[in-house]
């Protein structure tokens, strides 16, 4: 099966300033792919190259099996896009704006437009300039979804949405996934990516440095196990176990906090040799994975 998005060596320089370098991306049909990285890492540049707003300096790419430059129009007819920095026609009402865009797509989206607007509690008959940031974002969301595209390219989609609307947005993404459609979203809000993405690509300093499933990333990361024993325990036996990164002993040695990379199996088995009062584990968040990638970078530089 052809991937929905595939790029090879895609590179964009603005003069001598790099935007994105050597991007090799492969997004499969029906998955939600999170594209994460700090501000200015090259996320938006990549998206703008994919949509042919920018011409790549080098490399090539296909979307839905179509060339990103040559077949851009065909690609755009099957794609929904939500830009990171929304700029709409402020003097139009939301309805005028959305109808205009539906007309440009040559599709009738009246029904979907209304139902999405209802769902996100958006008043279609007010001028866009009178909307708050969150409501403007809703107009952008409706615009991206209303023609039911096969692929959604969303640049920081939940910026400005309140928690209720973020939840609604996640529901929407889940429905899209259930229908077998594909979502490519960039974000730096990691808990959000954690909740909705299947796979994640991390961009750092204009390069894609790692791609894996969210679970795999987490497995590679630290988790902490806190065990309270009835008596003091020697923490050096735990420190010597496979996968243990560090240990910390408190309450005269009866409470141990152990940081583990990967499986906690060895730690639990060792703990079972003692009299355990309570045990709690905290899984690592994607956030920590992410930070660890950047910590490496900070050390290097």
């Amino acid at each position: 099966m052809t991937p929905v998005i595939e790029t090879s060596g895609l590179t964009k320089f603005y003069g001598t300033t790099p935007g994105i370098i050597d991007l090799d991306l492969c997004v499969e049909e029906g998955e939600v792919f999170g594209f994460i990285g700090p501000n200015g890492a090259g996320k938006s540049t990549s998206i703008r190259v994919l949509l042919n707003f920018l011409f790549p300096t080098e490399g090539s790419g296909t979307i839905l099996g179509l060339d990103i430059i040559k077949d851009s129009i065909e690609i755009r007819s099957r794609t929904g896009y939500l830009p990171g920095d929304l700029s709409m026609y402020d003097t139009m009402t939301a309805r005028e704006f959305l109808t205009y865009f539906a007309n440009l797509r040559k599709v009738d989206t009246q029904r979907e437009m209304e139902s999405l607007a209802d769902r996100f509690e958006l008043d279609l008959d007010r001028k866009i300039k009178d909307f708050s940031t969150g409501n403007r974002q809703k107009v952008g969301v409706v615009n991206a979804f209303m023609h039911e595209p096969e692929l959604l390219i969303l640049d920081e989609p939940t910026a400005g949405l309140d928690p209720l609307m973020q939840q609604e947005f996640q529901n929407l993404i889940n429905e899209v996934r259930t229908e077998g459609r594909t979502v490519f979203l960039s974000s730096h809000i990691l808990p959000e990516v954690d909740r909705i993405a299947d796979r994640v690509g991390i961009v750092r300093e204009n390069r894609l440095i790692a791609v894996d499933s969210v679970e795999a990333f987490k497995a590679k990361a630290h988790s902490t196990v806190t065990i309270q024993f009835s008596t003091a325990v020697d923490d050096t036996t735990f420190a010597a176990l496979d996968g243990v990164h560090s240990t910390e002993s408190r309450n005269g040695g009866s409470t141990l906090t152990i940081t583990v990379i990967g499986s906690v199996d060895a730690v639990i088995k060792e703990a079972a040799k003692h009299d355990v009062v309570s045990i709690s584990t905290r899984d690592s968040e994607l956030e920590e994975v992410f930070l660890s990638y950047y910590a490496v970078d900070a050390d290097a530089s």
Partner: protein
Amino acid sequence: MLRNVYTKAIWDHRRSTIWWAVGSAAIITWVSFVYPILRDSDEMQGFVEELPSGMLALFGIDPATYLTGAGFLQVQFFSLFGPLMMIALGISLAVGATAKEERDGTMDMLLSVPISRVSIITQKVLMTVTLVAVIGITIASTMLILSTAINLGLSIEGVVAVNVSLALLGLVFGGVTLVVGAFSGKPSAAIGAGILVAAISWIVNAFAGLFDWLEVPSKLSPFTWYLDGSPLINGWTTGQAWLVIAVFVLAAASTLLFSRRNIAVDRAVVPSVSGRRSTARSPRLRAPKLLRNVYGKSLWDRRRSIWGWAGGLVVLLLLTFAAWPTFEKDSAAISAMISAMPKELFAMFGMTDPDSLATPAGFISSRTYQSVGPIVMMVFAIGAVSGLVAKEESKGQLDMVLSNPVSRRLVLLEKAGAIAVLTLVIGLSLTVFGLAGNAIWDTNLNLVNLLAANAGLVLLGLCFGGIAIAVWSVFGSGAAIGVTAAIGAAAWFLNGLGAIVDGLAPLRAVSPFYWYLGDTAPLGKGFEPQYLLLLLVAMVGTAFATWRFESTDLAV
């Protein structure tokens, strides 16, 4: 420079101020260098004293002083070019004072620091006054230097007085913009109000001598306060006192209005959407039919402003028709004077074929088709390209449009088509009202010539639209207006200078203004082959821009 609101505002304008200074110094120098041609023409002397009253009213010429350097500059620079420039400066600075900051949302930020609103707007007013003064001082010093260098015989008092008047005039209309901006927070409304009041004031003053009923209103026109008493010749005038009072009243009014109203009221005060949804949604409005494609949307965007442009030119045209009977009475004397004056003098101001001035075709051409008309048309076309193309790119709206399955070529061509249609609307309005005016005031214009003059005007607009869009495609959104306006000004000067300076005559042939104006008044000739050149430039410019746009990055 970033110590307070005032210095920050000055700092923001540092580049544009330099350009304004260079431009204004260049224009006054150019006009001044023509004076010796007139002074050295012996034939002029005898005729000027016999000038008829209609002529005086129309050109603001004082026979006693016209042949002095001061009299010449008073008429040739301080009656039209100077005010036009200074008013544009005043309005553009004033709209930046509050309205633009409100629209951009930076006013919220500014008001979040502990400074009073009175202080903010006062500092902005001071910024406007300072920068207008800088340009006034630039013109004054250039004139004083030129006065010595080429012997214009200007008095220091006159030079100072006329530039104070000019600066005050710019500040008055800037003040109108300031008041409307402070009250509404809308830049477009503020600019529109400034231009409208200035246009009415100018028309009332310019036609006062020809219509009795304009006698009283003209006394209230800032243009009258500005021109009456010819400050360059006579020094300080009472009109200046009125200008000062008007500036203070407008500044005070804007301060008062600004400190009492809700900033960006739309966004902040209206209750949340979910609360009022049931009432707001009940009428299921339909989107306008024009929003079918990029072309329709572009027309829809301008559906209101186009009538302002067309209406302004139509009013000017009709007033010119109405003024003809009065003017006609003196036409014999005028022809005599004109034939004595060096032709180059007229050509320099776009009035080619001055001999025809005493005929309806020449007179009406001179007021609508040879000076104001072409300039307005050029400004309109550049503005349309800037608004519909350049601004949409820099604001990121083109990104949104192009995320739809539409080709870049189509988007640009539809926009260009819309601009062409809008230009045509202006031309058609002028044609319809020109035909009506011709019938009402019995001017016996040749109908083919009338059509041709309007067609030429439309084509001139298209030509500058084509240049603007090509410039945009090469230099980007930021430079589109500035570079095209500079090309336009150069073309205008080239046409004028080409008429006076022999060496420049061949160069004149590359000026679109020359293609349009030629050597005969537009209403006095039919369709000229050069009109095709205008069309050609428009088409080549658009085609070139389309070609470039197909393969360049969208800048945001």
